[in-house]
């Protein structure tokens, strides 16, 4: 049963930034091929939580286990890819083609300073094709549209075949068609390659339409399996506050996102 292999286990986690507690007593686990939407109000600690899970920030208390190993001893970082909030904001003059950028994703501990092997270039081509970027492979990244940029960064992350991908709000300033296409690609990745995905987003409809779990973060962390029985409104109220009202009907997913659900 691949679905029950935990890739991320968090127990009793406390994280602070500049002495202020940001995450308090988080307990959750994410299994292989989960597709988790991380939601919550601004300043609620979503990015801080991601930073702790990626070992960018020290933990105040608690444990994080990645692929069964304590984060302090974890070394297989090549299994993990991270696409930051600022990834798609770069100088438009930056001299990089799509293919060159995606190929940077093939660098890992074992091949630093060495030539790429044939398999590496094959992985680059495969990622470019998977994300539907073949037509723009030789274009400079500065010439791409917002939606294409997002897909390029996912393609870069995919080039080293990660098992777990973290994305931090990669959909700012992109129109809804491009967003839809982006989420569709992530769904494909999740279902076809069993890649575990954790994505910070404000797009609640996408979370409830496409993803398998929702993680609400506002100092406290609450994770719920997305099923037809789940009371999304009640769950979100606990994270966003009593005034928050989220109307969601499952039938809305068809129409907006096609009929895969």
């Amino acid at each position: 049963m691949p679905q029950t292999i935990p890739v991320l286990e968090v127990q009793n986690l406390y994280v602070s930034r500049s002495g202020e507690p940001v995450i308090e007593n988080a307990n959750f686990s994410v299994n292989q091929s989960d597709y988790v939407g991380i939601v919550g109000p601004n300043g609620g600690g979503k990015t801080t939580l991601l930073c702790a899970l990626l070992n960018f920030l020290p933990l105040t208390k608690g444990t994080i286990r990645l692929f069964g190993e304590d984060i302090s001893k974890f070394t297989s970082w090549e299994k993990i890819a991270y696409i930051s909030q600022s990834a798609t904001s770069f100088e438009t003059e930056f001299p990089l083609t799509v293919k060159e950028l995606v190929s940077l994703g093939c660098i890992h501990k074992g091949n630093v300073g060495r030539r790429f092997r044939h398999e590496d270039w094959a992985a680059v081509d495969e990622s470019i094709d998977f994300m539907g970027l073949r037509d723009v492979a030789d274009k400079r990244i500065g010439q791409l549209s917002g939606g294409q940029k997002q897909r390029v960064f996912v393609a870069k992350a995919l080039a080293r075949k990660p098992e777990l991908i973290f994305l931090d709000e990669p959909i700012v300033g992109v129109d809804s068609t491009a967003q839809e296409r982006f989420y569709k690609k992530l769904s494909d990745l999740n279902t076809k390659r069993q890649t575990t995905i954790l994505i910070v987003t404000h797009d609640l409809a996408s979370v409830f339409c496409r993803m398998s779990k929702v993680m609400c973060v506002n100092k406290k962390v609450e994770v719920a399996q997305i099923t037809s029985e789940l009371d999304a409104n009640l769950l979100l109220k606990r994270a966003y506050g009593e005034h928050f009202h989220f109307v969601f009907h499952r039938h809305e997913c068809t129409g907006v996102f096609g009929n895969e659900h």
Partner: protein
Amino acid sequence: MNARGFLETSTNLLDLFGYQFFQHALIGGIIAAVACGLVGLFLILKKEAMVGDGLSHTAFGGIALGLLLGVNPLLTAFGVSVLAVFAISYMRQKKIATSDSAIAVMLALGFSAGLIVISIAGGFNVEIFSYLFGSILTIDLMDLTLVSLLGLSVLLFIGFFRRELLSMVFDEEDSRIMGIPTRRLSMVFDLLVAVTIVLSIKVIGTILVVALLVLPGLCALKLNFSFRKTLLAAVGFSILGTTIGIMLSAVFNVVTAGVIVFVLVLFFLLTLLYKKLS
């Protein structure tokens, strides 16, 4: 220039290649051009072009020290630049000062150290000028050997680690996760900036070395190439500018550094024009 003048100049130009001093100058110039083109493009992309300027002024302190002690000034310049580059990254890392302020501090410190050494020594006459403004036409075999070795180290490092450096310039955090030893590579790169500056001192002098670092990369960036082609174009512009500069300066007996900078600025204007038209 009339036709006869031009003909005489071209004959002179060809004659020049027969002289050993000119051959040395060209070899030294091309090595410095390659190193500057390579390192300079990364500095531009890192938005740290002024590190080059800061370090080259700091190197002046080292040159003065070398002249005072009777040691090859390029060696002391190298020592002082290395110290300066590590001081700058230390200040940056420990958040003692921002990058540009740290550079300003080291620039001022190195340059004033040079002035003090000069005044203690009672001046070095013409010799110090050859380091301030370069004197490629007087480069000797010892300097040429040093320049070649340093140039080779830059070429090999960039050759092997260009991809990793590019990844770090583009996204340092992600590069660290990917398993690139970002700290160590940054340190070696900083060291190579110092190396590049020192090997360029004889060619273009400490004051103008920043031009050789920045202009070729800027020209190349205007062409909208891929990274690989941009890097090659930067080296190409650098070699071409330096070679033309050295030849023109030898023929017309004008200071080489100034001519090289003018040729490079001309290239820059042409690439700007190209970008505008295309």
